[in-house]
């Protein structure tokens, strides 16, 4: 793998450069536009243009023969895993922008939209770096980049006390978690004496390291990463921030930043400690069981805590904790198939979760309440209610992992990769399967209220106007994809296999 110096690597870094340039351009443009009220349309349009541009550059720059190339003296590693995760993150921020257009919280009386879009673009930039960073400094920097921008985005509007409270909680918890991670990284740096993954891997291959200090540093590093993907021990911020933040941003948090977090974890563990190859270190330091335990805990905690949630956003928060647990299961498999199924599940999760949040946004636009009880009798209200209920049913069943939908295929691959590891992880498969059943319970509570009960409670729904066909077509599109990938998912699998192969 060639390690290019700064200038040569610029050529394969075009997408990020375009994005950075666009951010600065947008900043300049926003100074000159005086009148505020028309700003909203312009800002979102610009934002979407920026993201789409970056997406195009990204696709163009992607050579399918997945030869990994080290950029900027080994700072970044542009392999197919990086490309795929960048795609996923770009799509999430694209949907974040579109959702912000749709949601009443962020489209009408929302003054400084330009800054809002700017922050989103910079968050995306951070995520793109996260996807490909192969250096401790770069990894920490990009993680902080995303975190800081997320703190600001969470607390962006002062709609009510909840947002600022959520933002502060997010900041405090994030600060401490990344501080602990930083301390772990310093210990790791102390042990290996190098910052980039490749040399660390050589060090571990060569030297005999005493397990304890390594274990401690890894656990501390897991604190920072666990915080990002909201897995069990580091999840406490998740319900409050999901409930407090604006719904489009919550959707983004649950998918985009979680995917970026997983990119870091996958890259960190597979590049340093190696996947298939059982390095000498492999048997002394078994990080597999630690992650397996984390995954089992977050699955079970996420599902059990969600059983009695009253607020739909908190419920989806706990469900996202549970899903983080499921994906961690794939990471714990320490195999290429594991990485493949992790990415597959993340892309399927992208479809289902954004779909579900879109429904939540539209319903909160109409009934402006996030309480699950307000969803009662939705399907009998009018055609729009029926359409929303049907779509939400598809997403919920897919989230449970019931066959005709993509969620099942995702879970199927997870179980496949876990069971392939032989006796060691059978218990984990059992826990995952038990959780599927528990998870149906709270998903079905929403279904029961929406579809099964005939009591017409809450305000009635306005009819489907001509104008707002954007959200409904988007929702239908996501639903069709969820079903399509439930039936014929080879294309998606081929992509995710590339990600798996990138990791050795």
């Amino acid at each position, binding site marked *: 793998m060639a390690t290019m110096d700064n200038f040569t690597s610029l050529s394969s870094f075009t997408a990020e450069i375009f994005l950075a340039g666009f951010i600065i351009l947008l900043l300049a443009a926003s100074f000159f536009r005086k009148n505020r009220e028309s700003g909203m349309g312009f800002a979102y349009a610009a934002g979407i243009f920026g993201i789409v541009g970056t997406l195009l550059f990204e696709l163009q720059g992607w050579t399918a023969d997945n030869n990994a190339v080290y950029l900027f003296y080994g700072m970044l590693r542009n392999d197919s895993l990086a490309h795929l995760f960048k795609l996923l993150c770009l799509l999430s921020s694209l949907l974040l922008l579109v959702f912000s257009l749709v949601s009443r919280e962020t489209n009408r009386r929302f003054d400084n939209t330009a800054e809002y879009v700017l922050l989103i673009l910079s968050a995306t930039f951070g995520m793109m770096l996260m996807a490909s960073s192969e250096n401790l400094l770069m990894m920490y920097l990009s993680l902080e980049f995303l975190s800081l921008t997320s703190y600001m985005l969470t607390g962006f509007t002062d709609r009510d006390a909840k947002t600022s409270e959520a933002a502060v909680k997010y900041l405090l918890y994030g600060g401490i978690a990344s501080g602990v991670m930083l301390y772990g990284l310093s210990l790791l740096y102390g042990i290996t004496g190098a910052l980039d993954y490749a040399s660390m891997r050589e060090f571990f291959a060569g030297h005999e390291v005493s397990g304890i200090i390594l274990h401690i540093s890894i656990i501390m590093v897991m604190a920072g990463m666990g915080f990002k993907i909201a897995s069990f021990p580091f999840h406490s911020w998740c319900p409050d921030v999901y409930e407090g933040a604006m719904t489009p941003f919550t959707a983004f948090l649950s998918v985009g930043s979680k995917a970026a977090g997983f990119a870091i974890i996958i890259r960190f563990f597979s590049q340093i400690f190696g996947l298939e190859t059982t390095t000498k270190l492999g048997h002394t330091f078994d990080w597999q069981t630690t992650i397996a335990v984390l995954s089992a805990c977050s699955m079970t905690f996420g599902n059990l805590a969600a059983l009695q949630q009253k607020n739909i956003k908190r419920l989806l928060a706990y469900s996202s904790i549970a899903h983080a647990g499921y994906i961690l299961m794939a990471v714990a498999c320490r195999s290429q198939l594991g990485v493949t199924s992790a990415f597959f599940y993340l892309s399927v999760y992208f479809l289902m979760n954004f779909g579900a949040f879109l429904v939540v946004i539209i319903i909160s636009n109409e009934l402006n309440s996030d309480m699950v009880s307000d969803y009662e009798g939705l399907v009998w209200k009018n055609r729009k209610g029926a359409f929303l209920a049907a779509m939400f049913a598809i997403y919920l069943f897919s989230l449970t992992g019931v066959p005709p939908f993509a969620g099942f295929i995702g879970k199927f691959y997870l179980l496949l990769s876990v069971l392939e590891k032989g006796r060691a992880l059978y218990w984990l498969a059992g826990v995952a399967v038990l959780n599927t059943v528990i998870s*149906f319970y709270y998903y079905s509570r929403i279904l029961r209220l929406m579809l099964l009960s005939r009591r017409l409670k809450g305000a009635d729904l306005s009819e489907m106007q001509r104008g707002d066909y954007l959200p409904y077509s988007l929702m239908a599109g996501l639903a069709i994809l969820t079903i399509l990938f439930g039936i014929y998912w080879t294309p998606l699998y081929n992509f995710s296999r590339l990600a798996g192969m990138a990791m050795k």
Partner: protein
Amino acid sequence: MEFINSHLLSLITFVPLLGALLVLALPGTREDIIRWSALVITCIPLLLSLLLFAGFDRSFAGMQFIERYAWIRDFNINVFMGVDGLSMPMALLCSLICPICVLASWNIERGVKGYFFLFLLLEAGMLGVFTALDFFLFFVFWEVMLLPMYFLIGIWGGPRREYAALKFFLYTLIGSVMMLLVIIYFYLASTPHTFDMIELARTNSLFDYRMLCWFGLFIGFAIKVPIFPFHTWLPDAHVEAPTAISVILAGVLLKMGAYGILRINYTMLPDITMRMAAFMAALGVINIIYGALCAMAQKDLKKLVAYSSISHMGYVILGMASFTDEGLNGAIFQMFNHGIVTAMLFLLVGVIYDRAHHRDIDSFGGIASVMPNYAFVTFLAFFAALGLPGLNSFISEALVFLGAFQKYRILTAIAASGVIITAAYCLWTLQRVFLGKLNEKYSLLPDLTVRETVSLVPLCIIVVVLGVYPHPVLNLMKQTVSLLNRIITGAGI
């Protein structure tokens, strides 16, 4: 015509699916068009399965009408369908009962389009389960059949429908999730990773954890049959489901559990099945006696019929556990007969419920004098249920007894005593509802309407004809059953 012949099974399974999409496209307001198109769509698989019935080669034990299309090459998953003596009668039963259920759901007013869309989806799922030979495809159809059932019970059901629908879904989900683990384990354990059931059956000797896998599968299917400890969902699901749905539920869905055990447990883990035979037989007998006793104590007519289904399915389990030709043939024939008889019983309960709007047995009385035709059909159905010789259930029960007695003498004797309890609760119900002084509240109940008669008469004819001349159905399964028995007894030694 040649196209139809070569793609018969996929047509049978996917016509209802396309039909469901068609129904979705119809305008929601024109309910009559939706009803009639649903009826036509369900009749197509019926005609096709009659074609299948005609073309079926009775002397061949293995799979026929095999179709294999690649679905996901990387994981060797393919749409692999075929029928043999075991699945042929079940597919026939399913495609026969569906049009009758559409007829029975004529008076659904709320959300007609949704109802028929889900119903056709359900039918596709059921037919798929019976014809699928690829384990993955089998599991997908198994769960596809689960979804519409949840909504059909949940939305169009009775007062406690939500609770019943949830209970139904959770029970089956627990079972199917265990099955998923075993499917994946089999996939990984087979040398060229494959989901193909026949392949797995052939190379089944190389899996280990056999007992664990056997129980994982068995519990999944036992919940569906239902077998004794897992049966509590059935009475609730039946009482709350609308008439047509409880007909489908009892008529076809219960058979899937037994079919699953035969298709998967028997062929893939024959040695374990041999060892667990006595356990299964005991469960079967408990089902018979316990189901009959519970039925006797019920106040609600529909719950009584539900418990009677548990009791009748007990015969199937006992027959299956005997590994003799008579026993196994009797079991599969009992699955077919029970499908017909319970469908009739639930239709009849639906008829009286539409008129009297309640199902409390004790508050009826002397209906026979007001509704003679209805009384005649119900008497025929109940007598078929208690296994009166000359009607179809007797033959299957006799075969089961004759088959099972060779291996489990005392158990079968106890099961035979079930015949008395069944007769007791059937006649006691008939007496409380039909005979005795006419309860003047019901003095002006209308007799069977044309629609109801059209749906009931074919079933009556089948019940009587199969009782006298059972060969059309029995010949279908004989070869496959003897092959199955040889596999089990062969593996058992």
